[in-house]
């Protein structure tokens, strides 16, 4: 019985802490995502005609940017609804 109560208390505290941690970083995550977009654009800009950086550097960096490319592609699919996404993130109630 005591073990069970302890387990419930532990899980409750863990959830509470998790929730608070989530509340402490959600906007930062959104900002980080935007910075990653900018970074991907800077590094891989030559593929879409942006002058920087030189193509050889882009090609050498390419294998390390798999995840960034994936995330950027996904986000580009949602670009028609960014206002809605931001409205969801910034709480107005």
């Amino acid at each position: 019985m005591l073990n069970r109560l302890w387990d419930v208390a532990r899980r409750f505290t863990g959830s509470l802490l998790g929730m608070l941690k989530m509340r402490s970083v959600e906007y930062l995550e959104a900002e980080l995502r935007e910075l990653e977009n900018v970074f991907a654009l800077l590094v891989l800009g030559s593929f879409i005609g942006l002058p920087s950086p030189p193509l050889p550097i882009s090609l050498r960096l390419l294998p390390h940017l798999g995840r960034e490319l994936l995330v950027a592609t996904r986000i580009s699919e949602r670009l028609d609804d960014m206002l809605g996404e931001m409205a969801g993130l910034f709480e107005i109630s």
Partner: protein
Amino acid sequence: MVQAGLLVVAALIIYALFYFTHGRYLQNKVVRADPRRETPAYKLYDGVDYVPANKYVLYGHHFASIAGAGPIVGPAIALGWGWLPSLFWVWFGNVFVGVVHDYLALMASVRYDGRTIGWIAGRLMGRRAFVAFNAYIWFSLLLVVAAFGFIIASLFTATPGAGVAGILLILFAVVTGILIYRTPLGFKGGTVVGWLLIILAIAAGYYTQAAGFALPFDAWLWILLVYAIIAASIPVWVLLQPRDYMNAYILWASLAIGGVALIWLALRGEGLLTWPAVTGFFANVVGGQPSPFWPAVPLVIACGALSGFHSLVGSGTSSKQLDNELHGLLVGYGGMVTEGFLSTMIIGVMASYGTLALADSVFKAVSAGGSAADLVSEIASALGVGAVTDKASALKFVETLASNPAAFGSFYAGLANALKWSVIPLSYAYATNAAFGLDLTVMTIFATLWITAFALTTLDTATRLGRYAWQELMEPLKSVSGGLYRVLSNKWIASIILAVLGMLLAATRQFLIIWPAFAGMNQLLSSLALMTVAVWVYKVQRASALGNALVIAPAIFMWITVTLALLWYESVVIPPMIAAGGTSALTGAVVGVVTAVGVALNIAIFILWITAMRRPAESG
């Protein structure tokens, strides 16, 4: 006589009952949630937006995101109709409409890869619905800034100590943010320092108020204007993020203290509801005009019963983090009923301890003189009681008002508004003082800080969002005049335009006009979200007749209610404002145009909805 604690217990029972019957039915028969179906958090996992989260963590986060000042202020205004109608709308709206709206918006988004409800509306009802959705957001923001600017300035004027604590909390949030994100103290160390700083802010507020510090309403508006512009333009990690994090503690602490206080008082046989249960079908609530409870109530109580902004949080953010489809019920449905619980607590606290609180505010207003004192004299004459000269006569004045339902319905909202809505935090302070003996001034500052902390977040996030929307709107200018585009799309200019316009509206002090317009726009958004999920349930999910009825009936009911309410607002409340001339006319014209655009969009959405419902069903 009913006890406030019983309302809290009744709310818990009702919400639990609906959660396990109505909620489970929606989950199993309408959504047909399947734990084996991959959620967007797994299907589209990117470690950034799409990340699975623990269901309790997500529930707590979702609730903290949807709960702001709205579920507190709306029910407080609606008490003009009496506590029973207000409670009825909170409970009925919550379990009949609000939970359907929140839960299905979340789950529809889960099935559409975490897309927002606006995008889904576009997918199901056409591109024009999507444009209308974005227009809702844009038009709402101005009213949001005006309504929340007014309520913060009012509460700070009434409780200057809370104003000091609020400003200190802003500075302390910056310090906490630096400690958490930029020093080795990290999350835990920074959090402990953050708690201490919250206590320090309240203590500083307490002592400055005791020392006689006070600022007039307009001065607070100026401070808020500068705050909104700066806060909306600085990086989120500096202020918004750490303050939002600290707010979460204040929210959960206030909810726990208030809920337990009312139950504890009920066990001791205290906390009786002394305000009138019903004042009449008509009460002077919206714009000071005799307002019919139906259809006008959603223009007053939005959050707490139903809020369109919840669909944005549910579909834009929470849906991307759902670990398992079965968790949606706790997050979407559970989050909404918890907000209903918060509103129930506010109604209980105010209806039981509002007399003491109102008497305090009345005495202060009479001592200070001015228009609020004149209003008190006017009401005292109408009630046939003597002039308010001391605390005892102020209490007698309020008791007489509370014992006369018709008079209460006529004067309550106007009086509370003139008294800067100080009755809300004061009632909470009196309840917690009666239950646990907590210091009245400290708890008043704490409660005001709780309400204004959320309102401040809303104020600067609305300004920030308005900036983005404005910059998007300026895009066509780029090809016409590059110079003008650069000026108008500058982040400071974009923030200043919305904040200045919003604060000018707030400065007119026409809160009982502005709040219903804000709530109305909110309800229009919920109307669009409900219609979208109704199309999804009917055409895509192909639910049973009962399942369809549980979704389509609230959608139609809310559409009719909100449309009629706004038409009533346009035809009864706005014309006298315009006829009054001066700033009233300007406020009436601006708010009237914004809500008229909202009504027009709502009618357009209804036509699109009918068309979509009659189209052949699509699969998946």
